C-alpha cells in the first residue's frame, strides 16, 4: 500500500553551483573500471593487458562468485591493469574505440524467465552489480530472498541531479526494469518519489510512495525505515533509479547501456549542467575547460562522494560530479570570527541570519578531532528511530550484539553523512559505520 511519509529531521545544504537542466555529451578516450567501487568484491581478471574487448565483455569476476561478471563499458584495448599495495587491482584501464562495438546478449527469454533466469541474464550482461542490498550497503547476493525492492526516485543531497529531468524519456526502460525486478522478490517493488511524480506516475507493477522533508529524505535507507523497516535477518534490495533504466534498456535491446547522464555541479564548475558520459570516464575529459584548476574533484556529492585525483576515473555508482574549492589556509582566530560565510547546523555563526543564502564551501575541516562532547546534535539530522551516538560507540568498541540491538542493519554510511558534516568533534562517522558493517560481514561469514 502506498504511503505518504513526512520527515522533519535533516537539513538541506544550499550550495553554489546547481546544474542547469541542459544536456551535453562528453567523450572520454580512456575509461577505467575500478574494482574498488564494488565494496567487498575480490576481483579475478578475465583479460590481460593488450586484449581487445567489446562493450559488454567481462573484464573480471568476483572471486566469491564466478557468475558475477564486471563488463567493459566500451570497446577497445585493455591498456593497463593498475595495482596497489599487495598487488591489489585498483583500475583496469581501457583505450576506447571511436565507434563502440557492443556484445549482443540473448535477452529474448526475459518475459518468460523466472527469478533464476532473470538473475542469470543480468549476471551475464554485467548488470547484476547495479543491484545493492540493505543491510550492509554492498552488492546483492544472487541466492538471497529479499522481502522487497526499494528504489529512491530522487536524490536530496547537496546539488543532486534531478532524475525527473534525466529520465524524462525513459518510461519504457523503467517499466521493463521494474517488471524484471518484480520477479526477484516476493514483496513489492517500491518507488519513492518526492511527491512530484513526473515520469514515474505512469509506471505499473510497483508501489509508488512519497516522502517529504529535507535531506536525507532521498536516502533509500531513510525511506525503507519509514515505509517497511528492516529487521534482523531480513534483506531489501535497492538500485539507483537511473541504473534501473539502464537495466531496462539492456533487457530491451540486448546491449549494455554504457553511458549515464550525470550532473556536473559545484562552485568550481564554470557552467554547471548535465552531461551524458560513458561509465568510468576519465576526470581529465570531464574537467578540461569545465572546471577551475586546483579544485577538488569529487565523484558523487559533497557528503558521500569520492575524491578523485586529476589522473583518475569516475566511480561506477555515481550520477553526479562536484568540484569545490580546496582549502589550505589557516584562519587567524577563526573560532571567534563572526563567520557570515560559514554554514553551520548550530547557530554560533551569524550566517544563521541569512537562511536562503547559497554557500560556497571549501574542503576545510574547521577544527580538529575531539572526543564526543556535544549531545543531541546528530539526532537533529538523523531521521531514524535509532540512537546514532550510542550506535557509533558500540561500533567503536566492536560490540556486535549491541550494534544489532541498536539497529545497525537499517543504516548505511551515507545515512550518517549529515551527522559527520555537523559534528563539533569532527568524528568521521561514515567510516566508523562502514567498519562496523564490515566487521559483521566478516563475523557472519
Amino acid at each position, binding site marked *: 500500500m502506498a504511503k505518504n511519509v513526512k520527515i522533519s529531521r535533516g537539513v538541506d545544504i544550499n550550495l553554489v553551483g546547481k546544474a542547469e537542466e541542459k544536456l551535453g555529451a562528453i567523450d572520454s578516450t580512456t575509461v577505467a573500471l575500478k574494482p574498488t567501487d564494488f565494496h567487498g568484491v575480490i576481483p579475478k581478471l578475465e583479460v590481460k593487458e593488450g586484449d581487445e574487448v567489446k562493450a559488454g565483455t567481462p573484464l573480471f569476476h568476483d572471486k566469491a562468485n564466478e557468475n558475477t561478471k564486471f563488463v567493459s563499458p566500451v570497446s577497445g584495448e585493455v591498456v593497463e591493469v593498475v595495482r596497489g599495495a599487495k598487488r591489489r587491482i585498483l583500475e583496469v584501464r581501457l583505450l576506447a574505440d571511436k565507434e563502440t562495438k557492443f556484445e549482443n546478449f540473448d535477452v529474448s527469454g526475459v518475459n518468460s524467465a523466472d527469478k533464476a533466469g532473470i538473475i542469470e541474464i543480468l549476471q551475464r550482461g554485467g548488470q547484476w552489480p547495479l543491484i545493492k542490498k540493505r543491510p550492509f550497503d554492498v552488492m546483492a547476493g544472487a541466492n538471497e530472498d529479499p522481502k522487497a525492492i526499494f528504489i529512491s526516485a530522487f536524490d536530496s543531497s547537496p546539488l543532486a541531479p534531478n532524475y525527473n529531468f534525466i529520465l524524462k524519456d525513459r518510461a519504457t526502460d523503467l517499466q521493463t526494469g521494474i517488471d524484471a525486478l518484480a520477479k526477484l522478490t516476493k514483496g513489492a517493488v517500491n518507488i519513492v518519489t518526492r511527491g512530484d511524480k513526473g515520469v514515474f506516475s505512469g509506471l505499473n507493477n510497483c508501489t509508488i510512495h512519497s516522502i517529504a522533508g529535507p535531506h536525507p529524505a532521498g536516502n533509500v535507507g531513510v525511506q525503507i525505515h519509514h515505509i517497511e523497516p528492516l*529487521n534482523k535477518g531480513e534483506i531489501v534490495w535497492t538500485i539507483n533509479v537511473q541504473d534501473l533504466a539502464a537495466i531496462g534498456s539492456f533487457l530491451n535491446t540486448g546491449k549494455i547501456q554504457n553511458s549515464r547522464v550525470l550532473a556536473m555541479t559545484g562552485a568550481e564548475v564554470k557552467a554547471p549542467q548535465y552531461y551524458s558520459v560513458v561509465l568510468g570516464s576519465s576526470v581529465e575529459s570531464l574537467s578540461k575547460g569545465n572546471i577551475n584548476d586546483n579544485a577538488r574533484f569529487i565523484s558523487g556529492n559533497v557528503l558521500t562522494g569520492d575524491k578523485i585525483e586529476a589522473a583518475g576515473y569516475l566511480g561506477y555508482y555515481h550520477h553526479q560530479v562536484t568540484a569545490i574549492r580546496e582549502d589550505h589556509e*589557516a584562519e587567524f582566530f577563526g573560532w571567534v570570527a563572526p563567520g557570515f560565510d560559514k554554514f553551520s547546523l548550530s547557530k554560533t555563526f551569524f550566517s544563521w541570519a541569512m537562511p536562503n543564502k547559497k554557500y560556497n564551501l571549501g*574542503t576545510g575541516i574547521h577544527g580538529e578531532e575531539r572526543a564526543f562532547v556535544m549531545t*543531541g546534535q546528530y539526532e537533529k539530522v538523523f531521521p531514524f528511530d535509532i540512537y546514532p551516538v550510542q550506535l557509533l560507540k558500540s561500533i567503536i568498541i566492536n560490540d556486535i550484539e549491541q550494534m544489532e*540491538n541498536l539497529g545497525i542493519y537499517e543504516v548505511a554510511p551515507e545515512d550518517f553523512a549529515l551527522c559527520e558534516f555537523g559534528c563539533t568533534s569532527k568524528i568521521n562517522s561514515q567510516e566508523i559505520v562502514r567498519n562496523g558493517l564490515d566487521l559483521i560481514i566478516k563475523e557472519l561469514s
Partner: protein
Amino acid sequence: MEFIKNIVESVKPNFDKGGKLEKYWPVFDGLETFLFVPGHATSKGAHIRDGIDLKRTMVTVILALVPCLLFGMYNVGYQHFLAIGESAEFIDMVIYGAIRVLPLVIVSYGVGLGIEFLFCIKNGHSIQEGFLVSGMLIPLIMPVEVPLWMVAAATAFAVVFGKEVFGGTGMNILNPALTARAFLFFAYPTKMSGNSVWISTDGMQTVDGYTGATALGNAVEQGVAGIPPYLDAIIGIIPGSVGETSVIACLIGAVILIASGIGSWRIMLSMLIGGYVMGYLFNMWGANSYMEIPAHHQLMLGGFFFGMVFMATDPVSAAQTNTGKWVYGFFCGLLGIMIRVFNPAYPEGIMMAILFMNVMAPLIDHYVVQGNISKRLKRAQAIA
C-alpha cells in the same frame, strides 16, 4: 597576522618530531590552534564540514557566562559598600568587585590549564578545550572571600579527579566545576558556610544589623520574612556566590545558549518544572516556615538558575538522549529544592542534586536506549 604566522612557522620545527622541544608539542599545538584554526582539508568522509568546532562551542558558553561575571563583579562591590555602610558610585563598585573577582578567575585558569598541559605533555595528546568553560565556572560559584589557595586546591582536585582520571574532556562523569565546589564544601566546611564568606569586607567594621547571611541562610531561620524581596532576588543584588545571584544575567546566558543550539533547552525547561513542582508541593505541605516560601520565589534564590543554565546542561555529564534529558532535568530541579529545604545544613542543594543526577544520567540513558532496543525486538517478533 602574517607576522604572527611567520613567528609560529619559524618556531614550529623545534616542536615537531625529532625537534629538541618535541616533548612540549601539545603546548605548542594548543597555542597554535588557539591562534589559527588549522587549515586542514578533509581527507575522508564528507568533503565539506560544519564551521563549528569545540573551541567555538566553548567560546559561546564563555560568552554566555560574561553577563554573570560582570554582574558578579558589580554585586561584590555593591555588597561590600552596603556592608560597611559607605555610599559609592557604580564604577567604584565594579572596580572593587573586579579586584576581588579577577584573582579567582586567574587562579582557576592558571591551575586548571597548567594541570591540563601537564597531562597532555605526559600523554602526548593535543590539548582539549573542556577546561576553558570549567575555568570560568569555578570562580563564579565560589564565595568571594574564599582564600585563593583553596580555589587552587579545589581546581586541582576537580581537574585531576573529576576529569583526567576518567580520560579527559568528554569522558568525565561529574561536572568538573561542581566537583571543585563540592570538594571545598566537604573539605573546608567551616570556611565555606556561615555568614562571613559571602561578603568582602576587607576586615572593616560592618554597619549595625548587617549579617552577611545569604538568602538561603536567612530562609532557614525566618522563612518568608527572612528572604530578600522578589525583585532583588531576580536582579541579584543579594549576598551569594560570585556569579550565581542574578536571575537576569543567567537568563541572558540561557538565551545565548539556547539560540546558538549549544545548551539543551530540554534540560533547562524540565529542571525549572521540577524545581517548581517541588516548591509547590512544599507550599501545600507547609510544615515549617521554609516550606512556605512561594515556589516562584524559592527558585529565584541561591544557585538554582545558575545551576540550571550552566551546570545541569554540561553535555558530557548530563543525560545524552533527548528523552533522558527531560527526566534528568526534572530530577535535578526536584531534588535540588528538596535537599535545600529538608537539610538546612546544605543550602546548596542544587549542587548536590546536579552531582547526584550526573551519576544517575548514564542509568537514565541506559533505560531510554533499552526502550528503543526492545521496541525494535518487538517489531521483529511481530513479523516472525
